[in-house]
């Protein structure tokens, strides 16, 4: 993978970045009705002078293209405006919540990969066996099940009936964990607070399993399908004919090639996780970006909605970019 490939790929994201900012801008500005009146709330008692004043302060009396460039300039400087309700910079509110969402997303990816890849490999190696059927049916169930329902079911079983895992929240703050990075797992390890580490993991388990279930199901199917394809190749047959053990052939030769599409699918489906964490954070009361944007929607806090949607979309673009680089690194034949 050459430096020029990386630069070329980065330049390809520029039009997508501009497109994203344009769409986010247009969603908020081309809606029916006056944006200031919408922000104030329909039926609210405000004078025309006040509306005009707010419109002028927000630059909404300028031509649309001027407003867009002003908005774009703000985005490039990390200024997403101010929250109407919380009267704080949107970027600050996002930064406060980002670690919680990232921690949940990364943990759920780890859990889903730990489950899905071995199950996918076993399913492919023991094709049409009982294990394969269980794996396949579970994967189908995983992609068909609504995440909010799965989350509530897990709460009923593990929190209500068995009482072994907490219902909501990110941590039991009685462990006195000092916030350093705001990633609780990292902070607990840094400070050696093992009680807090265990507590944070216990709080993470149910939301992460809920969030990761769809990706686990998808990953399992892709891994199985990819392994089946690789196992039918001539070089695998050659390796077996040479007397190598099944274990070595599968783990050393087949798996490495079979995981290339898996890596791509996982990275490309980060977007589904990002969308899904809105639901999961709502179910489990997780204090992340998802809950922030849902509350912003309920309260019509449009600058906040705009900022969070932009962050989600830009994160997806970055993950796509990383996926392409990973794919190129794993598969030298890739040349765009």
């Amino acid at each position, binding site marked *: 993978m050459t430096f020029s490939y990386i630069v070329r790929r980065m330049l390809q994201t520029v*039009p*997508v970045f501009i*497109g*994203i900012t*344009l*769409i*986010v801008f247009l*969603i*908020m500005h081309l*809606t*029916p009705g006056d944006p200031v009146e*919408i922000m104030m709330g329909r039926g609210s008692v405000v004078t025309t002078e006040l509306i005009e004043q707010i419109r002028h302060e927000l630059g909404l009396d300028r031509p649309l293209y001027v407003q867009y460039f002003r908005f774009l300039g703000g985005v490039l400087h990390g200024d997403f405006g101010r929250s109407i309700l919380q009267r704080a910079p949107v970027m600050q509110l996002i930064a406060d919540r980002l670690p919680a969402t990232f921690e949940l997303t990364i943990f759920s990816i780890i859990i889903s990969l730990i489950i899905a890849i071995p199950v996918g490999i076993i399913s492919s190696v023991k094709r*049409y066996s009982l294990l394969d059927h269980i794996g396949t049916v579970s994967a*189908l*169930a995983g*992609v*068909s*099940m*609504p*995440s*909010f*329902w799965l989350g*509530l*079911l897990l*709460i*009923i079983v593990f929190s*209500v009936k068995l009482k072994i895992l907490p219902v909501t929240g990110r941590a039991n703050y009685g462990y006195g964990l000092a916030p350093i990075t705001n990633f609780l797992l990292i902070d607990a390890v840094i400070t050696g607070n093992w009680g807090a580490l265990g507590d944070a993991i216990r709080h993470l388990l149910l939301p992460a399993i809920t969030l990761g279930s769809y990706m686990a199901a998808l990953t399992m199917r892709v891994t199985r399908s990819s392994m*089946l394809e690789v196992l039918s190749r001539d070089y695998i047959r050659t390796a077996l004919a040479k007397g190598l053990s099944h274990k070595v052939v599968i783990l050393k030769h087949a798996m490495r090639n079979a995981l290339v599409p898996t890596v791509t699918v996982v990275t490309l489906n980060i*977007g*589904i996780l*990002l*969308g*899904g964490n*809105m*639901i999961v954070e*709502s*179910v489990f009361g997780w204090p992340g970006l998802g809950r922030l*944007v*849902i509350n*912003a*929607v*309920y309260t*019509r806090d*449009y600058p906040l*909605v*705009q900022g*969070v*949607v932009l962050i*989600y*979309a830009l994160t*997806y*673009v970055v993950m*796509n970019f990383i996926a392409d680089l990973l794919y190129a690194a794993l598969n030298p034949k890739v040349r765009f």
Partner: protein
Amino acid sequence: MEFKRFWKLYRKNRAAVIGLILTIFFLVMAIFAPFIAPQDPNTGKLTERLSPPFWMEGGSRRHLFGTDSLGRDILSRVIYGSRISILIGVVVVSVATITGVMIGLVSGYFGGKVDAIIQRIVDTLLAFPYLIFALAIMSVLGPGLKNIILALVYKEWVTPCRVIRGDTLVAKEENYVEAARAMGASNWHILIRSLLPNVMASVIVVASLRIGWVVLMEASLSFLGLGVQPPTATWGGMVAGGRDYIFQAWWITAFPGIAIFLLVMGVNLMGEGLRDAFDPKLTKGKK
């Protein structure tokens, strides 16, 4: 492909047949809801609120699946809720597929700048996580049936567009297209009369595989309170309504969730069966 041959291939796939049966079951439930539902889904007696299913202590045969916090019959609401899910699933996928197919055909056939512009728009829309995009649209349009359909269509058309564009790029190099061009056929004639019939199999497969996803998205938006508003019964809304009573009345949440799960699974199995039947090369041989 002849229908008989297609049906023979489809029937061999047991999972696909189960999916078809499930899908037809819910379709019939939705169409005949007024005749099947034992009670009015929006009327309840407060004296009967939070009654358990009939097999549990305190349950009655009047309310087979129990009642919710307003005394409304859960079974009737699940039956009527199927109408919203299926309506939104079918309408969104139909509109999005027609839109996406036409744009994909144009993009793939004409190529060049037209293709480049369309695909950049597609790339940009694909960059938005599905639910986030729908949420952003709903936040300005407001909740409601029409708005949820619009919000989902805005994002949904890109998938069939991408797939059909890919098929068109291959199909436009075929001899029959060249022959049509040589005979003086216009571009639109080639698109509609030559290319479209030949990508129809992909269209059907993509559409059927997307219905399940759209149903999940509608249920998620309803769960968040942004879908069709109460008192209309929606499965997602019912699950949300049951959250506050999850400790003492789990059935309010359980039954609509099971319904969503079975419908989506049925449609997914049916879609995968269609895909395999249209392309027998994809069907792995059984031992």
